[in-house]
């Protein structure tokens, strides 16, 4: 740990010592000023206690802080042995698993920079990121990901060694460039025997302002940019998170979104490190709902799409229940909705209604929450995209506190969040302690705090564009602050459409209204330099299939579902519903459904399943031209 001339006044928040006044230098968490220093502190203090759990052969197995520390240390020492220098980048290409965390901590501990790559990225995207970041080493999960590297024409020669986590199918691999993770641990152990204090020394040499992470953001235009985050940036976000989110050392959580994304990275690596929470890894993206039920987490952070899926599941379950079950569910939901309305409006709940809710809660809602794995939940958080207010209310009605937050990679993932005691629906909450938010003259949301990133990797021009002259971060989002500092996001600055008639329109506002329909999973509004607005719509497969099935609309595959006149009419009604809320120039005159089922591997979708405007406009040009023909 570094010696500072003065240590700011300290205070204890839920068992963790932090600066009494948030947002000040040096950012200290239990006296630590870098991520690896905090990691070391946790490992020393909680050694044999459980840090994570991973399901193997059907059984959840615990891994201790000692396991976490030792493996991270061996990785760090082995990378040092193999020639990694301070400040060099190491990339990780894997689904969420404990080794992801071991690597992240090992790389940072030895003074390297950790960079995650999406497993859904193509070989050419992998090539771009490896070369742009000058990655010296690459960790890959398995055969499938390794083959992506081998597809790169020149093999990305800058990467000196590739370490793989799973040996299946790779036993025959005989190339000194590829190392199995167990062999890497061996190298680390040998290095440790030689220089027992090297890893500790490396941690001590790291400064708060040093580069810790490189996070490639899925740019909607052009190639992805590497956002540079320092140790201080992350610790500042942890400090804010500690004060604004309800986690503590007893908290169980579930890790399932990509760790390359700042939301899951914060929620499943750095925040748990701060509060000493236990992280459980979902087996695979397909088993999330089963894993959720098994773990029954205390806090659950997810993107709106996941919350929508849970809702759809409940609706489908309820329809397949017995007549009595359906009736009980309907009545309890109606009572819950009334209560939610009163509470969300800030009014007291009438005693009779409260009593009625209590009964329904015992009879129905508590069981429902148990069935979903949300029975122990203190707070659910939604971020990374706008969520429908109706959905928030529905969760409130069944007794799940679901709150919306806001942040981006460039401010280490956390700028504002609604809190149990300060919640305003439709807003993304008040600024978290340590962060300030202001609205610029053009309506842009700008943030200030120690969490604001160092800039884009080797791209000073873009970095300069991202900061104002007085050092505030330009988020690129348009929004409003109300009298009590609750932030409402209305759109993206760059996406503003100027119609042929010269009107400025923020498409995000219309798009998120469309997305609030359970039948529409995402939409892109078209209309720049055109006479009128149109939309390309991606339907929610599950809900629309159910709609078609219930109304006896025949369909075979996804394309025929999108073609069915009844489905098109239903979506038209949804669009018209949205049109009613907007002015005349903002009306959607026509729309088309995207009739291919997109997956995260498609470039039109981000890893969090959002449509990418530029790619959608390019790939589905025929549909667009058809609407303006």
């Amino acid at each position, binding site marked *: 740990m570094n010696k500072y001339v003065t240590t700011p006044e300290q205070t204890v928040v839920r068992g963790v010592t932090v600066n009494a006044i948030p947002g000040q230098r040096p950012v200290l968490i239990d006296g630590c000023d870098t991520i690896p220093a905090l990691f070391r502190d946790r490992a020393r203090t909680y050694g044999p206690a459980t840090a994570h759990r991973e399901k193997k052969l059907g059984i959840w197995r615990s891994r201790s802080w000692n396991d976490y520390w030792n493996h991270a240390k061996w990785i760090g020492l082995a990378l040092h042995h193999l020639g990694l220098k301070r400040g060099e980048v190491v990339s990780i290409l894997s689904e969420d698993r404990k080794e992801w965390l071991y690597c992240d901590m090992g790389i940072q501990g030895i003074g390297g920079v950790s960079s995650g790559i999406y497993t859904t990225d193509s070989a050419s995207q992998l090539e771009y990121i490896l070369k742009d970041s000058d990655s010296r080493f690459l960790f890959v999960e398995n055969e499938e990901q390794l083959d992506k590297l081998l597809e790169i024409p020149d093999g990305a020669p800058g990467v000196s060694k590739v370490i793989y986590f799973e040996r299946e*199918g790779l036993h025959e691999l005989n190339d000194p460039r590829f190392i199995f993770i167990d062999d890497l641990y061996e190298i680390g152990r040998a290095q440790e025997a030689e220089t027992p204090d090297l890893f500790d020394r490396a941690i001590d040499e790291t400064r708060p302002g040093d580069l810790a992470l490189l996070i490639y953001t899925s740019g909607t235009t052009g190639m992805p940019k590497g956002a540079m985050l320092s140790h201080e940036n992350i610790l500042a976000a942890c400090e804010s998170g500690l004060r604004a989110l309800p986690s503590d050392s007893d908290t169980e959580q579930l890790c399932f979104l990509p760790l390359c994304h700042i939301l899951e990275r914060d929620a499943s690596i750095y925040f748990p490190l701060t509060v000493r929470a236990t992280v459980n890894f979902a087996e695979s993206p397909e088993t999330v709902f089963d894993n959720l039920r098994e773990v029954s987490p205390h806090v659950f952070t997810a993107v709106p799409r996941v919350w929508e899926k849970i809702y759809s599941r409940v609706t489908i379950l309820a329809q397949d229940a017995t007549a009595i079950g359906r009736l009980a569910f309907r009545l309890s939901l109606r009572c819950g909705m009334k209560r939610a309305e009163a509470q969300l409006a800030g009014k007291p709940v009438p005693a009779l209604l409260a009593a009625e809710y209590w009964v329904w809660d015992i009879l129905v809602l508590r069981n429902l929450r148990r069935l979903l794995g949300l029975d122990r939940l203190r707070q659910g958080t939604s971020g990374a995209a706008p969520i429908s207010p109706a959905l928030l209310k529905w969760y409130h009605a069944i007794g799940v506190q679901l709150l919306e937050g806001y942040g981006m990679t460039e401010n280490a993932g956390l700028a504002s969040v609604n809190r149990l005691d300060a919640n305003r629906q439709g807003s993304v909450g008040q600024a978290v302690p340590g962060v300030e938010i202001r609205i610029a003259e053009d309506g842009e949301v700008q943030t200030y705090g120690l969490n604001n990133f160092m800039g884009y990797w080797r791209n000073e021009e873009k970095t300069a564009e991202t900061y104002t002259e007085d050092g505030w971060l330009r988020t690129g989002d348009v929004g409003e602050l109300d009298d009590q500092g609750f932030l409402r996001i209305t759109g993206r600055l760059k996406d503003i459409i100027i119609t042929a008639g010269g009107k400025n329109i923020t498409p995000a506002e219309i798009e998120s209204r469309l997305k609030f329909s359970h039948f529409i999973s995402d939409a892109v509004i078209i209309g720049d330099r055109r006479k009128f607005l149109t939309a390309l719509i991606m339907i929610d497969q599950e809900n629309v299939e159910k709609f078609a099935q219930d109304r006896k609309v025949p369909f075979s595959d996804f394309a025929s579902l999108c073609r069915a006149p009844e489905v098109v009419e239903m979506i038209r009604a949804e669009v018209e519903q949205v049109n009613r809320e907007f002015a005349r120039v903002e009306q959607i005159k026509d729309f088309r459904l995207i009739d*291919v089922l997109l997956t995260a591997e498609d470039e039109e979708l981000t890893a969090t399943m959002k449509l990418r405007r530029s790619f959608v406009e390019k790939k589905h040009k025929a549909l667009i031209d058809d609407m303006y023909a």
Partner: protein
Amino acid sequence: MAEAPLLQIRNLETYYGPIMAIRGVSLEVHTGRVVSVLGANGAGKTTLLKTISGIMDPEKGQILFEGREIQGREPHHIVRAGIVHVPEGREVFPLLTVEENLALGAYTRNDRAAIAHDRDLVFSYFPILAERRRQEAGTLSGGQQQMLAIGRGLMLRPRIMLLDEPSLGLSPLLVQEIFTILRRLNRDVGVTMMLVEQNAKAALDLADDGYVMELGRIVMSGTASRLKESEDIKNFYLGAHQASERGERRWKKKKTWR
């Protein structure tokens, strides 16, 4: 195709107790066409055929045969309507002779001359059955039993034949032989067929149209030639080898059904 389909299935749902085996299937078979339904084990293919032929009752949805609803009706009504089901695993009567088995196929008919003519037709397509006409069906080989099962189905002069895995347990050569005969039956006699198959290559070579079923749902449909060109069909059903730099590869790309 402007004319109404011979067989139209709309939003069919069928359960085994609490288990939903068919989760909303819609498909069409037009007169004179051969339609293949592909799918792995447990996709719901057999259940689909059983629901059409009335052995199982659907929970929801309609089956329209020549424009009339037939779902949930008794199997013997459906047979009389002209739908013949050639079940999986042949299911010939082992202790009856070949001739007796064929005679049972014509059980619903009483025009003796025409029956005799049809039996000769079956024998002309399957000469081996003529040779063994007095042999007990249980003593026939698997391929011969399959031929007998198809022949028995033909004895009804069906409007449509539902074939459940005619290639099951047969050598590649026999599969080829039987599928060639099926093709001829379709061309020469104009028998409309709907067959479910795991042997995707044989089924797509024979069929005009195809559907792919997974977990009780249709995930892809189109003409057989289009399906044969699909990357997913090639990789998952036709066993195309995806090459890799290492020369070996265990994993497969995710299916997208495009």
